[in-house]
C-alpha cells in the first residue's frame, strides 16, 4: 500500500517536472490566458498615416494591425501558411481570372455598422490597387470586384493572375477599411487615416504626439472571448538605448522589432523576468543588399560586380554586424522562405585575391597610391546595421583598391538621393521579402520603373532576359511552374549581380515573462494580438 503511494507521488512529481520542462522554453503555453490588463510596448517611430490599406509597411502595421484587419493572416501550420481573418475561405479559378472570397458573418466596424463585401470591394478597387505602395503591383490587373451577396466578394482580373501570388499577398496587402467612412472626400485626406476605424480586436483610442498611442479593447470583437487585453499602449521611445532600460524598469513589457540593440541582448537575456524571443518574424525577412548604380561605367562591368561580391566576407557581416542574429544570403530570395528558395545559384566566396584579379582583368589596375577608382557609398540610415555594414563595406572595398567615400543622409534625403536623383554609386539598402518574389522583390531588378519609386531598381540596370522571365512568371498560373520560374530568376540574379545580396535578418523581441502567447505566428509583431495576454 505504502509502495503504491510512493510510486504515485513519484509519478506525480515526475509528470509535473516533465510539464514544467516543456513549459520553460515557451512560457505561456502551459498557462491559461488571463483577461484584462494593459500591455505597454516600445514604439520607435510615429507614423503619421496609420492606414495600412494605403501604407503597407511594418511601422504602420505594428500599430494599426490591431485595429484594421486583413482578409487572412500568416500562420505557422495553416493551409498554404494562412489562417482566416475577415475571409473564411478563398478560391482561385483555374483560368486565373477570378478569386472568390467567402467573408466572415457577424463582423461589425468599430462604429457599429456591419462589415460586408462592399467594404472589401471598395478597399480593393479604390485603395489597394490605385494607392497602396505594394498593391499597385500585385493588383494591377484587378478589373472589378463582384458582390453577389453581403458575404461573397469575387475579384475579377483583366489578365490571368497567379492565385499563389494573391494568396501570398493576403497577410500584408489586404487591410479592409470601412467604405461608409472613406467614400466621401479624398481618400488620402480622410481623418480615419490618422485615427483608424476597423474591425479588429482593439479600437483606436488616442494619440499624443511624441508620447504614446493608446488602443482600447473592442468589446464587440468577432473572436469569442477575445481580445484578452484591455489596452495596448505604444510608448514612443525613439532612442534605441532606452528600450532596454525601460524594460528593466518595468515601464514597458515588450520591445519588438529589435528595439533593444543586438549588442545588449546577451546581457538582457540574463536579467530575471525578461525573455528574448527570436521567433515571430519569419514572414518579415529583411535583406541586406548592396544596390549598384549601373550608370557608372566601372560598375556596369560584370567583373567589377563579381569582384565586389568576392570582397565581402558575409560570415564576418553576420557574426560582427548582426552578432549572429542573421543568415548569409545567396540570392534575392531568403533561405527561410519555404516556397521559392533555391540554393542552386552561383555563389561568391570571400576571396580578396580573386577579387583583385578580377579587377585587374577588367582593366582597372591599381594606381601608384594603390587605388583603382573612387566610389560614392550611401548606407541607408534606417537601421544601425545598415550603417555599420556601410562602414564595413568601405573597408572591404579598400582591400581591393576601391576608394569608397561614405555619404550619410537622413531617411528622406537618402530616398531622394538614391531613388530619385540616382546620386550614388553603391548604396546599402534593406528591402523586405514579403513571402512572394512578385510582391516587392522582382521590382528591385526589373527595368522600366519610373524615377522616384522607392525600393525599386533605380540603378539603371536593364536585362531583357530577366525582364522577360519576370513577365512570364507574373502570368504563369500553375504554382509549380511559377515556382520553377522564380528559381530560375534567383539563378539569373545571382549570376548577373544587378545587386548583391549579403545577408538576411529578422527581428528580436524582448518581453517580460508575464506576456503570454507571443510569437505564435510568422508575422506576430504586426498581427492583431487578439490572443496576447498578461499573466500575474
Amino acid at each position, binding site marked *: 500500500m505504502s509502495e503504491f503511494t510512493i510510486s504515485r507521488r513519484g509519478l506525480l512529481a515526475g509528470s509535473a517536472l516533465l510539464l514544467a520542462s516543456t513549459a520553460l522554453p515557451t512560457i505561456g503555453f502551459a498557462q491559461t490566458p488571463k483577461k484584462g490588463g494593459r500591455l505597454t510596448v516600445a514604439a520607435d517611430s510615429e507614423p503619421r498615416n496609420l492606414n495600412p490599406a494605403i501604407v503597407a509597411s511594418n511601422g504602420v502595421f505594428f500599430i494599426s494591425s490591431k485595429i484594421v484587419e486583413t482578409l487572412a493572416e500568416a500562420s505557422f501550420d495553416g493551409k498554404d501558411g494562412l489562417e482566416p481573418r475577415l475571409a473564411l475561405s478563398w478560391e482561385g479559378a483555374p483560368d486565373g481570372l477570378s478569386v472568390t472570397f467567402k467573408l466572415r458573418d457577424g463582423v461589425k466596424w468599430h462604429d457599429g455598422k456591419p462589415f460586408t463585401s462592399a467594404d472589401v470591394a471598395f478597399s480593393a478597387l479604390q485603395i489597394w490597387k490605385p494607392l497602396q505602395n505594394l498593391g499597385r503591383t500585385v493588383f494591377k490587373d484587378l478589373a472589378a470586384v463582384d458582390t453577389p451577396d453581403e458575404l461573397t466578394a469575387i475579384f475579377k482580373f483583366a489578365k490571368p493572375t497567379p492565385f499563389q501570388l494573391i494568396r501570398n499577398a493576403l497577410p500584408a496587402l489586404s487591410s479592409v477599411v470601412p467604405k461608409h467612412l472613406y467614400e466621401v472626400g479624398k481618400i488620402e485626406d480622410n481623418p480615419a487615416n490618422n485615427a483608424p476605424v476597423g474591425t479588429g480586436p482593439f479600437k483606436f483610442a488616442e494619440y499624443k504626439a511624441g508620447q504614446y498611442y493608446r488602443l482600447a479593447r473592442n468589446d464587440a470583437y468577432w473572436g469569442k472571448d477575445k481580445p484578452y487585453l484591455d489596452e495596448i499602449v505604444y510608448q514612443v521611445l525613439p532612442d534605441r538605448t532606452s528600450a532596454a532600460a525601460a524594460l528593466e524598469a518595468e515601464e514597458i513589457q515588450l520591445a519588438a522589432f529589435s528595439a533593444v540593440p543586438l549588442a545588449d541582448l546577451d546581457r538582457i537575456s540574463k536579467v530575471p523576468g525578461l525573455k528574448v524571443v527570436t521567433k515571430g518574424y519569419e514572414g518579415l525577412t529583411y535583406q541586406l543588399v548592396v544596390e549598384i548604380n549601373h550608370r557608372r561605367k566601372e560598375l556596369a562591368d560584370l567583373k567589377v560586380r563579381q569582384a565586389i561580391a568576392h570582397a565581402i566576407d558575409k560570415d564576418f557581416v553576420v557574426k560582427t554586424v548582426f552578432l549572429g542574429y542573421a543568415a548569409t544570403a545567396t540570392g534575392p530570395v531568403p533561405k527561410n522562405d519555404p516556397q521559392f528558395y533555391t540554393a542552386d545559384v552561383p555563389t561568391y566566396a570571400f576571396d580578396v585575391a580573386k577579387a583583385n584579379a578580377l579587377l585587374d582583368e577588367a582593366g582597372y589596375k591599381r594606381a601608384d597610391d594603390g587605388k583603382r577608382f573612387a566610389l560614392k557609398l550611401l548606407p541607408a540610415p534606417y537601421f544601425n546595421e545598415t550603417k555599420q555594414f556601410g562602414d564595413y563595406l568601405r573597408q572591404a572595398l579598400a582591400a581591393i583598391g576601391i576608394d569608397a567615400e561614405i*555619404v*550619410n543622409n537622413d531617411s528622406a534625403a537618402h530616398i531622394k538621393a538614391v531613388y530619385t536623383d540616382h546620386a550614388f554609386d553603391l548604396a546599402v539598402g534593406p528591402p523586405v521579402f514579403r513571402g512572394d518574389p512578385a510582391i516587392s522583390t522582382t521590382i528591385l531588378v526589373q527595368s522600366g520603373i519610373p524615377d522616384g519609386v522607392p525600393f525599386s531598381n533605380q540603378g539603371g540596370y536593364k536585362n531583357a532576359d530577366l525582364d522577360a522571365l519576370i513577365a512570364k512568371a507574373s502570368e504563369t498560373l500553375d504554382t509549380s511552374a511559377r515556382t520553377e520560374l522564380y528559381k530560375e530568376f534567383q539563378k539569373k540574379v545571382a549570376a548577373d549581380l544587378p545587386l548583391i545580396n549579403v545577408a538576411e535578418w529578422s527581428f528580436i523581441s524582448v518581453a517580460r515573462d508575464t506576456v503570454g502567447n507571443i510569437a505564435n505566428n510568422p508575422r506576430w509583431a504586426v498581427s492583431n494580438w487578439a490572443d496576447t495576454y498578461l499573466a500575474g
Partner: protein
Amino acid sequence: MNRLHRFFRTPEAIAGALILALLIAMALAAPLLFSGDPQAIAGPALLPPFHDWSLPLGTDRLGRDVLAELFHGARTSLAVGLAAAAAALLIGAVIGTLAGFAGGLVDEVLMRITDAFQTVPSFLLALAFVSIVGPSLGVVVAAIALGAWTGPARVARAEVLSIRERDYVAGARVIGMHPLEIAFREVLPNALPPVLALSSVIVAAAILTEAALSFLGLGDPNRVTWGGMIAEGRTVLRTAPFLSIIPGVSLVLTVLGVYLAGEGVVESTAVRRSLS
C-alpha cells in the same frame, strides 16, 4: 623668455600646456604610429581594453583599433578646432575693425548683421548649415566659424573705437594714408591682443561643437572623430562602456587643456600689461 617664465608660474597653465603638448604630439604622431587607415578592421570585435597588447585600448563594434582611432581623432579635433577658431577670428577681426573704424551707416549695418547671427544659437546654425550643405570637414569648419565670429567682431570693434581716437591714427590721417590702410595696418594690429584672448574659448567650443555634430551623425563619415566614436559606442553603452568613455574623457581633457593654456596666456599678458 620672460613671458614664457610668467606663463609657467601658474600650475594651471603648466597642466594646460602639458595636455596641449601631448595632444599635438598625438595628432602629429598619428600617421607615423598608425600608418594606414585607422578605420581598417584590425582584430575581433568588441575586444576590451588591456587584453591584447597589440590592441591596447581594445576594438569597437567592427573590430577597429580604438587607440588608432583615438590618435587620428585627435588630429581631426585639433584641426577642426584650430581652423574654425582661425576662421572665426579672421572674420570677426575684419568685420569688427571695419565697423569700428568706418562708423556711421557701415557700423550700423555690420553690427545689425552681427546681432542677427548672435541671436541664433550657434549650434543650431551649425546643425542647419551642415544638414543643408552636407557633411564634410570643410563644411563643418565653416559651420562652426559661422556661429563663432560674432564674439571677436564685437571685441575688435570696441577696441578699434578707442584706438581710432589715438594721436598716431590722427597722424596717419594727416600724412594722407588710405583709410583702409590705416584700419588694417595701424589699428587692427593694436586691437588684436584682446581679440586673440578669445581664441582659447573659441577653440574649445569648436572642438565641442564638432564632437556634437559628429555625435548626431553630421560629421564627416570618412574620418575618425571623437564625437563619432562616442555615438558609435552609445549603442553598446551597457556592454562596452569603454567605447564611449575613452573618447569622452579625451574630449574633456582636450577642452580643459586648451582652456587652461589659454587662461595662462591671458594671465601672463595681463601681468605684463599691468607692469608696463
